[in-house]
Every structure is written in C-alpha cells, then in structure tokens.
C-alpha cells in the first residue's frame, strides 16, 4: 500500500515517519504525475497560501481532483484540511474543494494563542495529545460528515467517506493512532476498488 505526502512545503518528514510506523509505504510527492501510483494522500500542515501557489504553479489541481474522483482516500491536517474543504470563510473559491465542510483559517488566533490539549477522537482513540498551531476549525459540516472530535464546542476532526481532516497536528506526536486509522481507510478503499 502506497501513501503519498504532498511534499511542496510543511511538516512532510513527520507524516512520512508516521505512515511508516503505521505499516504502509510512504512517498514524498513533488510533481503531479507521482500521484498516479498512490493509494492514498496526506496533505500536511504548513502554510496553506504557500502550498496553494505551488499547487497552481505545477499543475497539481486537476490531478488532485481526479485523485478524489477516483475515490482514493485523502487526509488533510491543519493547512491540509483548509485545502480539502469545499468552503473557506472569507474566500469566494475553495482550494481542492472536495470535503463537505466550511473551515475558518487561524480561527483560534495568532501563534501565542496556539495550544495543546487532550482529545477523544470518536471511534479512533482517546486522550490524544492534539497540537493546535494557528489552527483552523470546521464551522459547518455537511450531513454526510461524521464529526470525530470537538474542542470547546468547535469541530476539530471529521470524516466524510474517503476524506479525513483535522485542525491539529497528529504528525507532531509519537501517537500514530490517527495515521493508522487513515491507513485502514486506504486499505478498505483499495479492497473495494478491487471487488
């Protein structure tokens, strides 16, 4: 099973490590054609504006949309969640725009308001050390979206079928349970594609 990490900018190395610890092969994706071989894709934390510029520059956008249309699982953390969302507060257009959620950028404030806390992630794990860095949150979720975690009433982790997104950075901790959950999503999607 091959899982790619979009390697344009951000916490790429940490996701690679986490994927390998969860028993799958990890690949850093720097060009659109490299997506074809992948069974799943993680879009890491970083600066969403920077990643978007580079996505456009190298013609990633059609390939990322095709990847989603093919039913392959995608997991976005922090900036990655912003890139997956169908709606971004304050912007007319989304980025990849495939997951039925509305997100707000930097919604917890600037860096000095960044924090860590323990979260229970529905059906995944409990007491997860969640690190929020200038994090977004999900303001509104579509009816098919399963809410996996909330922090002070705000949705911070969710799944819609093949799409998984969270506001925080599971890649910054030693607990790989969320990545392992995504690896299972990829395995199930691959099995379904073979049937």
């Amino acid at each position, binding site marked *: 099973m091959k899982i790619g990490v979009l390697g344009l900018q951000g916490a*790429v190395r940490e996701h690679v490590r986490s994927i390998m610890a969860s028993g799958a092969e990890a690949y850093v994706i720097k060009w659109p054609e490299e997506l074809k071989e992948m069974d799943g894709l993680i879009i890491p*934390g*970083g*600066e969403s504006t920077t990643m978007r510029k580079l996505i456009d520059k190298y013609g990633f956008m059609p390939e990322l949309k095709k990847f989603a249309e093919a039913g392959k699982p995608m997991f976005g953390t922090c900036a990655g969640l912003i890139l997956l969302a169908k709606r971004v507060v304050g912007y007319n257009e989304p980025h990849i725009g495939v997951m039925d959620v509305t997100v707000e950028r930097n919604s917890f404030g600037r*860096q000095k308001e960044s*924090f860590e806390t323990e979260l229970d992630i529905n059906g995944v794990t409990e007491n997860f050390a969640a690190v929020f860095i*200038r994090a977004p949150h999900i303001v509104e979720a579509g009816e098919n979206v399963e809410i996996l975690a909330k922090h002070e009433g705000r949705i911070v982790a969710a799944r819609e079928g093949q799409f998984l997104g969270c506001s925080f950075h599971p890649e910054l901790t030693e607990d790989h349970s969320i990545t392992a959950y995504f690896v299972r999503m990829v395995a199930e999607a691959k099995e379904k594609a073979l049937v």
Partner: protein
Amino acid sequence: MRTGTDRVKRGMAEMQKGGVIMDVVNAEQAKIAEEAGAVAVMALERVPSDIRAAGGVARMADPRIVEEVMGAVTIPVMAKARIGHIVEARILEAMGVDYIDESEVLTPADEEFHLNKNEFTVPFVCGCRDLGEASRRIAEGSAMLRTKGEPGTGNIVEAVRHMRKVNAQVRKVVSMDEAELMTEAKLLGAPYEVLLEIKRLGRLPVVNFAAGGVATPADAALMMQLGADGVFVGSGIFKSDNPAKFARAIVEATTHYQDYKLIAELSKDLGTAMKGIEISSLTPENRMQERGW
C-alpha cells in the same frame, strides 16, 4: 489546554519547513512576499544591508510598521528584538507577533546574556555558527534556529560555513558513546542535556534555517542541499530589480532544490542581484555574526 509549550513553539517552526521567510519593511512588500508564496514575513524598519549602510544603533522596528504588516497578510509575521532586550521582546509578544528573532542584525542590548526565552509564550528564533551556540540557544528556549551567516552582504560563504559546521558537529555527537558526551559538552560550551537529546533524536530538536547572505535562487537551493530546513531571505529580494519575480524564483528553488533544470529556468532574466560584499573586506567589528554569546 496549554499555550506556549515547547511542542507548540517548535511545532510552529516545523510548519515553516521547506519554505522561505522574507524580510519586509511595509505592507506593500509584505503582500508581494505573501503573493510569491512566502511562508512568513519578517517585519523590519530596514533590511540588513540598509542597517549596515546606515550605521549607528539598530533597534526593534517601530510598532506601527509591525502592526501594518500584521494587518496586511494572513501568513505568520515575525519581528526582530535586540539580543537580551527583554522589553522589546515583551512589546512584540504583546502585539501578537507570531515569532521573535533575537537577532544579531540589531545592536545587542546585553553583551553578556541572551533572553530567557523559556519564560515567553511566543516562540523565538536565534542565530548560530556552531553546535555550542545552537545548544545554548535551545536551552534558553529558542524553538527554531538559523545560521548567522553574514547579514546584508549578499555573500553566502558564511551561511555555508555555519550550516556545515553545525551539521558536522551534530553527526559527531550522534555517533559518540554516551559516556563521551559530557566532555564534548565541555569542549563545545553546550548544555549536556541538549546534546543528550540530539543523540537520542539523531538530529537537532528544532528546525535550522539558512540565513545571512542568501542572494539568488541557487543560493537558496544550495543551503537546502546542505541540510537547511528552509531559508530566510533578507536584503536579497527587495534590493533586486524585480522583487515579485525574484521572490517567486527563490520560493520555487527552495521547494525543488535538486531540480537543476528548473532552477536554471527560474534564474533567467532576474536582473541584477544585490551587489554583495566580500567578507574579508569587513573588519571584525563590522561582522554582525560576532554578536551573541
């Protein structure tokens, strides 16, 4: 819920990896930098080459400039405080700056002590030339490092020296027997606990960016190849003929630092890069890298 933990501070720098942080002196430049794909901007009153030219005492920027830049962009905003200047740092923290550079580019306020950065909620970046300096800054609470290089010269040679030195010393520490670390700590002037952490992780516990002399896309790619986690570009961008184009080229060269055909394309028709200064023509008192203890 805990703010200002090491994980939150260091994590912020992890998110900047593979990116370019650009010096800007006003809202207009900040927008050009954001549009070009910068991961953050450093709000300054003057870029290092102008500080060098102006002489005199260089201080924290006018809060008005910092505020203007914070209002202009959605990417993180950094600002510089003088080495050891507790109040400048507290002012920047109170203003909500995302990262503070305790910087040798400004005139030091304390010739003996750096800030105790562990006491702050806001994260700090500090310069280093070797692993001793790097480890002391980490122990003081710095959540990110950068090479000192020689700021405002447009000459990459010092940044290369500092990056190679730190990485060679990290490799040595990682390969050492634990029993040998205390003596190594003594020789380097490095806190023992930090070396122990480096040995355990197999690398520095915080990211280390290149800074001080990056003047071309090829310079940025060179530093990435030498193991930098990302790049600070100071005077290089807005001292060039076409800042927007130049900034985009540096961003792309940092992402694809091993794609030489691409870097060749990016480097075409960029106009004149900043003139640059030969390091040996700078007297020791004019070398900013000598500041810091």
